[in-house]
């Protein structure tokens, strides 16, 4: 009987830990061009973080800080509200790969690669991400 109680408590604790770690990642991430660029050429993009995690991607497949061609990002930094890990922290207007291009490269680039490998992939054309409401 004691063993049963122990397992129940263990499962509950693990459940709480798992839930709190998941809740740290908001599922829907909204890229609002008005907030990011101050102007809007197309409607904003909503991205499902969970779908990318469920697809088996690791954090560093998307999030990156490159030094000498190596992704040296500390995953512990990936917290909501940490301004330092936002894409715009590096991809500003004066950098070779600006914010808009960084988004496009990251999303279309990966989706195209998967398509070429004949794997299940995400959208590649304008209106599939920039959906008019």
């Amino acid at each position: 009987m004691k063993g049963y109680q122990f397992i129940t408590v263990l499962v509950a604790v693990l459940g709480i830990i798992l839930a709190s770690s998941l809740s740290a990642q908001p599922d829907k991430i909204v890229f609002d061009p008005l907030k990011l660029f101050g102007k809007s050429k197309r409607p904003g993009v909503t991205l499902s973080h969970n779908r990318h995690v469920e697809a088996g991607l690791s954090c560093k497949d998307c999030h990156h800080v490159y030094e000498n061609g190596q992704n040296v990002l500390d995953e512990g930094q990936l917290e909501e509200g940490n301004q330092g890990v936002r894409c715009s922290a590096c991809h500003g207007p004066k950098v070779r790969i600006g914010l808009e291009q960084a988004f496009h490269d990251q999303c279309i680039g990966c989706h195209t690669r998967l398509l070429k490998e004949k794997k299940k992939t995400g959208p590649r054309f304008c209106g599939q991400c920039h959906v008019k409401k």
Partner: protein
Amino acid sequence: MCYFVQGPLVLIAGIIFILGLLYQGIQFFKLTKKKEWGVPPSSLEIKPQKQTKKQWVREALRTLNGTLWKTDPVLTIVTSVFHVCLIIAPLFLLGHNILLDQSWGLSLFSLPESVSNFLTLLVLICGLYFLGRRLFMARVRAISTVYDYLVLLIAVVPFLTGFLAYQQWLNYQTVILLHILSGELMLITIPFTKLGHMLFFFLYRFFIGSEYSFVRGSRTW
């Protein structure tokens, strides 16, 4: 199938388009190589006279009277607008340039999307005018065949589907795939149908000009 249309077929269509135009260009020069008439005595040759700018402008305007501008000004305007928009809209379209940049790392300057949208709309309106002419004007209908309607369709469908895709009307997935497919069809058919006037327009202008004014017969350039 979807992958083939979005990936390899784009390249195949582009290669057929370029090689096809090259082939037709070479054919054109080959076929016009043979001199059909002897060179007339130089005394008969009309040498262009030196003109002042004012004379040149007057002469140019006078020449316009011998063109379609005099006989059908509406068609002249519609067809000019159609052709200018048809070239400009897809070349300087934001979406195309972003995709180009994604695959080749280079792209052209992009017009604001509202401008591109307007140009596309103009192409569609002009296309509708051409269709109306073929359907309702007896003299045009008399010389229209299925081929003419088909060529008009090939030219206009990429713009219709592009417009629908931008507005996100109907099913986006289907529309964008049709858009890509119709664009590829247009590229492939340009060198081998009368859409080839994209190239031959320029060649014929010189060819006919040399036939009639330089009086030397056949291609002299």
